[in-house]
């Protein structure tokens, strides 16, 4: 166990050195590291609990997706039957299905054929899953079209993908460093933004669907009708925002131009009143539609509707032909700015709900770093002194090995671009305990062998070979626990699992190679007559 081939010794030292070197960028100023090649820049990322920031988990509203899907289907059915000149009655959404009754029984087959064209094969592997978006059945003249569960799941998946892109655009406008936006499971999105003082604004930007419509106000409906809730089926009652939150508006359901036709939106100030406003510009289609609508409706009010709230309902004084306009509506500078961001980024395909939020202020983060450092130093100092007192020279060897071990942990964490959290620091401190244990196991075994009457070199050799098997066994069990923690944990707990797992691997490596190498070197150099432990 004590003999090392020259190349083996060199390989061990080189491996340890290279891994330790990867830890270097963590301790240098960022400007210096920036000029290095990409692979050398890898470093440990501080977790949100240490640098402060927000962790927000969003979920796509599956029910809203389902509802929207069913409403689109209903409109499609109407269009198909009209185009085919098939008379129908009672077209409704019922549960997860759209139902329609064909007037003439002899047209049922024709209607079914036409409607089947609405059902499309679902992606899968080359569409080989055999599943389709719709189940169509009939009971006499009553036709029922059911949206299949895989179709909903597929739509939710698309909604998540689109939402991620839109959220990225929105969050980037906040100008924060390294935000993380990623899919979690089938219907969730994780947003992590480091270094935010107050997440309120972030949450406002994330929580708004930002669906903008320009629609007409129905002026033929009297206030009395509104009170009784007796309004035409093509209208709906929407309320204003801010101070107008209780004002009802009767708005046509028909959309003149939608937010999808916007190309740009910027915050600004009204030239006359110097109130904050948002100016916008339409693309060609939007500009044409807007021009037509305003030409036909001069003198009538139209409404700017955002997420089913009326922002403002100005009267069209003259046709707006240039394809640009402005929205005013008791904005503050901030809210005008936010609305412009939302309009530029586009509308979310479905509403998102915040289902988990964890925010750590920068003050607490800095305190945690300080406490983590202090406790690590104190812990390390106590362990070092104790090992020296217990094992003397061999204690020194152990301390050197453990120090290299810790440097290697940082090196591996850097290579993995791992996240260091406060529990992660605790994990490193505990690893120090485990690393020391591997040395203790070896030394105690050597002492036993000495007592058993072996010569020093023999005892050291036997001590190593017997202790290493135990070290492997005992560390694998802890490693299993760490691996499970990694899979079930999130955020800080996962950070703990990573440092613990990495720590165990470096500990086993150090025990098997470096500690042995150090002791072997000492034996060759000093040819000891007795073992000093």
């Amino acid at each position: 166990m004590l003999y090392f081939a020259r190349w083996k010794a060199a390989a061990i030292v080189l491996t340890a050195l290279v891994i330790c070197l990867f830890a270097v960028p963590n301790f240098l100023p960022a400007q210096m590291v920036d000029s290095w090649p990409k692979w050398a820049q890898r470093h440990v990322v501080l977790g949100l609990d240490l640098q402060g920031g927000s962790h927000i988990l969003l979920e796509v509203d599956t029910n809203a997706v389902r509802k929207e899907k069913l409403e689109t289907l209903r409109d499609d059915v109407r269009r198909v039957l009209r185009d085919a000149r098939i008379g129908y009655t009672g077209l409704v959404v019922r549960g997860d299905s759209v139902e329609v009754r064909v007037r003439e029984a002899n047209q049922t087959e024709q209607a079914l054929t036409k409607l089947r064209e609405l059902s499309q094969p679902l992606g899968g592997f080359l569409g080989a899953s055999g599943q389709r978006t719709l189940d169509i059945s009939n009971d006499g003249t009553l036709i029922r079209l059911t949206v299949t569960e895989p179709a909903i799941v597929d739509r939710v998946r698309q909604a998540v993908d689109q939402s991620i892109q839109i959220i990225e655009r929105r969050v980037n406008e906040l100008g924060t460093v390294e935000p993380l936006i990623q899919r979690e499971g089938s219907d969730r999105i994780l947003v992590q933004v480091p270094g935010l003082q107050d997440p309120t604004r972030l949450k406002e930007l994330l929580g708004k669907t930002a669906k903008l419509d320009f629609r007409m106000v129905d002026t033929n409906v009297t206030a009395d009708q509104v009170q009784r809730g007796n309004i035409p089926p093509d209208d709906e009652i929407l309320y204003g925002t801010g101070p107008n939150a209780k004002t009802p508006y009767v708005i046509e359901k028909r959309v003149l131009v939608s937010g999808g036709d916007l190309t740009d939106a910027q915050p600004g100030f009204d030239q006359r009143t110097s109130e904050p406003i948002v100016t916008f510009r339409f693309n060609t289609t939007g500009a044409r539609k807007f021009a037509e609508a305003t030409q036909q409706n001069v003198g009538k009010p139209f409404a700017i509707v955002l997420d089913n709230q009326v922002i403002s309902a100005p009267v069209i004084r003259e046709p707006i032909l240039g394809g640009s306009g402005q929205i005013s509506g008791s904005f503050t500078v901030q809210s005008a700015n936010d609305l412009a961001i939302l309009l530029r980024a586009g509308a979310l395909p479905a509403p998102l709900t915040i289902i988990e939020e964890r925010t750590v202020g920068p003050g607490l983060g800095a305190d945690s770093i300080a406490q983590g450092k202090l406790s690590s130093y104190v812990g390390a100092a106590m362990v070092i002194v104790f090992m020296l007192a217990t094992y003397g020279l061999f204690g020194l060897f152990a301390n050197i090995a453990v120090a290299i071990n810790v440097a290697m942990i940082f090196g591996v964490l850097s290579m993995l671009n791992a996240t260091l959290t406060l529990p992660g620091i605790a994990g490193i401190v505990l690893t120090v305990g485990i690393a020391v244990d591997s040395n203790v196991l070896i030394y105690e075994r050597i002492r036993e062998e000495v007592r058993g009457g072996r010569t020093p070199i023999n005892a050291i050799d036997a001590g190593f070979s017997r202790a290493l098997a135990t070290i492997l066994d005992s560390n694998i069990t802890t490693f299993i626990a760490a691996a499970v923690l990694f899979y079930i944990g999130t955020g800080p707990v996962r950070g703990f699992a990573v440092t613990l797992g990495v720590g165990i691997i470096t500990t086993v490596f150090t025990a098997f190679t470096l500690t042995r190498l150090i002791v072997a070197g000492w034996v060759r150099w000093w040819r000891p007559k007795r073992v000093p432990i």
Partner: protein
Amino acid sequence: MRLLRIVPDNTKFDFMRFRRISFPMSALMSILAISLYFFHGLNFGIDFKGGTLIEIQTKSGPADLAKMRATLNGLGLGEVQLQEFGAPNDVLIRIAEQPGGDAAQQAAVAKARQALGEGVDYRRVEVVGPRVSGELLSYGIIGLMAAILCILIYLWFRFEWQFALGAMIANVHDLVLTVGFMSLTRVDFDLTSIAALLTILGYSLNDTVVIYDRIREMLRRYKRMPMPELLNASVNQTLSRSVITHVTVSLALLALLLFGGQAIHSFTATMMFGVVLVGTYTSVFIASPILIYLGVGTGRDSLTGSGKDEKP
């Protein structure tokens, strides 16, 4: 320089005889811990219960807890708990989960923020919705079970099944006592607690495996030594290592406990209890003697065994 010797060489404690005390004692403690869990319950944190946790720091002077409590309880948010957290100007606020789904939780935070006004710094805000908390709890339990199962299978491969079973009984006993400790001290039971339990499991097993390794070695070497004697010898031989290792781990944990701050305080306190107090006791007084009952080495000639086998 004379080196520190905590455990003298060649100790000959009769650990196995102590099993007549340690087994009933452990059984009693386990029953106590389980009844604590059922009748006193665990103080579930927001990870598993849902709700809101806000840590604030007043900008000027110590916090007026009574006034804050009155303000927050007037908001109609149900149960609001306030607690000084580490320093007189540091306050931990817990708001119970609001009825009405995920959006209602966010609304509650907004209300609390408005009520607390400008005089405070928000150090931490955590909001866990009802669905997430349910998932976290089931993940936590599944994770713990999975870890126990994986380790059991590993030990079964490496040792005989009696060892695997013995280690499992011993370490589930550790977990049960630790859960009892958590119930007694009312520490928040959250994801970090699951991490603490898993680490305790890993550490205790680590310790048990070291002793089992030695027992296995002795079983091969001394074919005729009676089991109690062999187990005693194994535990005595590894005693020095057990003690030294636990001293170093305790030193590391002590540093975390004293200087690691409030955020990991309950984590380290639990670890201290589980690893240092229970884990050590278990490996010596439970994990080893239980092998006698599980039938390890029953084929031995325990009547004539003198222990003087051939030296390898």
